[in-house]
């Protein structure tokens, strides 16, 4: 007979402590610094004040509070614009200095993982051109897209370990008058949200204590160079990344578990654009339906471009097959902004989403008809030419 109770008790009593000295690989901080000492590149330091967090093997990671250079995401800006707008809105509400650059290209990794029409040298050169642009501006890069974040970490590994690649990229950048500059940390925006979650909670004006949420951690956040993802002993006992979950808990939300937590969303990079039957099937059958059956959440929160896209947009067609769908999906930045009182359409721009947000919004006390009428009124002023653009000030009226 299996001694279930004894095993359970043992697991309960066990205290898991991370020891960076037992990490299976070298600390990238040391390697990046050594290459700076060797004159191979410069290192852009995380500006002070920064917040320290713990990563997978118990190492410390510095998250800048402000003076941040926002490396935007193609899919967020193109198709889910309230995602990045919410990141900027939170910065403004917290009175933090940031830069939204036009001297930035895509990391081009979505295309690379979809079509392979590139190579290691080009991908590294694109990354280092963007990093050099950030350094020139005096602001520290913060990466909005999970795939950019993961890919830049991959790129950092490759540049650290290959002198040939490093020198090739250095020569390409030299052609355009740029230096080889590696940031001290590669930071994802959701790590910044995680780091400032208590400041966000201090400014929370919407009660979320009646909300049940499921979360989906992005594969390219915690699987691609996974050592550099945030873990915390108090979240899942330190056995899964703490990203998103810790933020939601700080906002008073009941985060529910489900059995396919580790599964990807079905994005597939190539599939979401030209083979969406796979993306839809996976998102619905392995994620949405499992969440609904096991956790019955009010909302699904995730933290990457592709995940919001796939999990949100895949549910419409599934309705035709009577699948168990109808779960609103948004990013942690949108939810955090909403908790702080951001307008659901002027800031969160929820009309770009597919799933029906109204039941969730109404559950937290938002008059959705009134909010939409306010947005329509603002749009009417743009149509008539009375105003050229919606401004940040308009959002806070």
């Amino acid at each position, binding site marked *: 007979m299996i001694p279930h109770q004894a095993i359970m008790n043992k697991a309960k009593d066990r205290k898991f402590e991370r020891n960076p000295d037992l990490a299976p690989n070298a600390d990238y901080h040391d390697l990046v610094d050594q290459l700076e000492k060797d004159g191979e590149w410069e290192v852009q330091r995380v500006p002070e004040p920064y917040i320290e967090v713990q990563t997978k093997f118990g190492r410390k990671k510095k998250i800048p509070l402000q003076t941040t250079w926002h490396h935007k995401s193609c899919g967020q800006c193109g198709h889910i614009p309230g995602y990045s707008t919410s990141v900027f809105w939170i910065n403004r509400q917290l009175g933090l200095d940031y830069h939204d650059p036009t001297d930035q*290209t895509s990391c081009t990794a979505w295309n690379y993982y979809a079509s392979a029409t590139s190579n290691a040298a080009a991908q590294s050169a694109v990354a280092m*051109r963007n990093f050099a642009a950030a350094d020139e501006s005096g602001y520290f890069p913060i990466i909005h897209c999970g795939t950019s974040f993961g890919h830049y970490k991959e790129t950092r590994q490759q540049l650290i370990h290959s002198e040939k690649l490093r020198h090739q990229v250095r020569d390409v950048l030299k052609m355009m008058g740029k230096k080889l500059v590696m940031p001290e940390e590669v930071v994802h925006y959701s790590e910044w949200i995680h780091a400032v979650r208590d400041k966000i909670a201090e400014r929370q004006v919407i009660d979320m204590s009646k909300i049940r949420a499921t979360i989906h951690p992005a594969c390219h956040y915690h699987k691609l160079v996974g050592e550099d993802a945030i873990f915390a002993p108090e979240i899942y006992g330190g056995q899964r990344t703490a990203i998103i979950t810790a933020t939601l808990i700080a906002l008073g939300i009941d985060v529910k578990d489900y059995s396919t937590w580790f599964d*990807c969303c079905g994005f597939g990079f190539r599939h979401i654009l030209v083979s*969406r039957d796979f993306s839809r099937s996976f998102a619905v059958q392995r994620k949405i339906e499992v969440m609904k059956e096991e956790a019955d959440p009010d909302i699904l929160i995730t933290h990457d471009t592709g995940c919001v896209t796939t999990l949100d947009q895949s549910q419409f067609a599934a309705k035709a097959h009577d699948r168990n769908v109808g779960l609103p999906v948004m990013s942690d930045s949108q939810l955090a902004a909403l908790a702080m009182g951001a307008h659901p359409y002027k800031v969160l721009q929820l009309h770009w989403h597919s799933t029906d947000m109204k039941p969730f919004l109404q559950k937290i006390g938002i008059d959705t008809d009134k909010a939409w009428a306010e947005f329509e009124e603002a749009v009417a002023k743009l149509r008539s030419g009375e105003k050229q653009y919606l401004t940040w000030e308009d959002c806070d009226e």
Partner: protein
Amino acid sequence: MGLDLSGKQYRKVPYEEKEALLEEVKEDLRFGDYMYGCYDCGICVAACPSARFYDFSPRKIAQSVAREDVDLFYVFLNDSVWDCSQCFSCDRCPRQNSPGGLITLMREVAVKHGLASAQEALEGYGRVVYKIMSTGTQVSPDMLQANAFPDWGPHVKDIAENLDVWRKALPPETLHTTEASWKVDEKTLIELYLIWHATGVMDMIKEVDEGLFMILQDVMEERLEDAGYDVTFD
């Protein structure tokens, strides 16, 4: 119908040609990091989303490369690698392999050599490559058309119909664009074109889609010339 692993479908391709492609994968600077060997345990398959919906196995692909089974490698290179989701769930490999990374290398080699299977896999994808390489951002707001995304719901039609004004209704000034995800400086674009030129990416495009290459060549050469660069992609 499942994947034909017999290799009969490629029996007319000379063994040396297949072997050379495998060697090219192995020569990539990332190969040593992605492939240490394979326990054949299948943990990668258990974590793999593509394995649930396709006849696809990262374990078999890793095995074919680890064992240097040239014929089997060639089958996967043509008939399997494009099913991968590139999520890197397989990075939980106990041997520290990255089957997903290995597949990236295999795809790159397939594109570089213009394999018919790669061309077929990328059919319909050319507009995305064009967008990223020419504008510096990948999915632009104006791609949201009801006929392109009929399965996403009626809001796509609403977005398309209101696109100009809804982009103006975005507070960040950089997002008022419709043809690119955000406003990218001309100088920044020129630098991106120089990267494509210096790293041989345009040569890869030429192999896999000559029509797309010619369109990109026109756009880039003109802008580079205007910026004072004497660069050609021939």
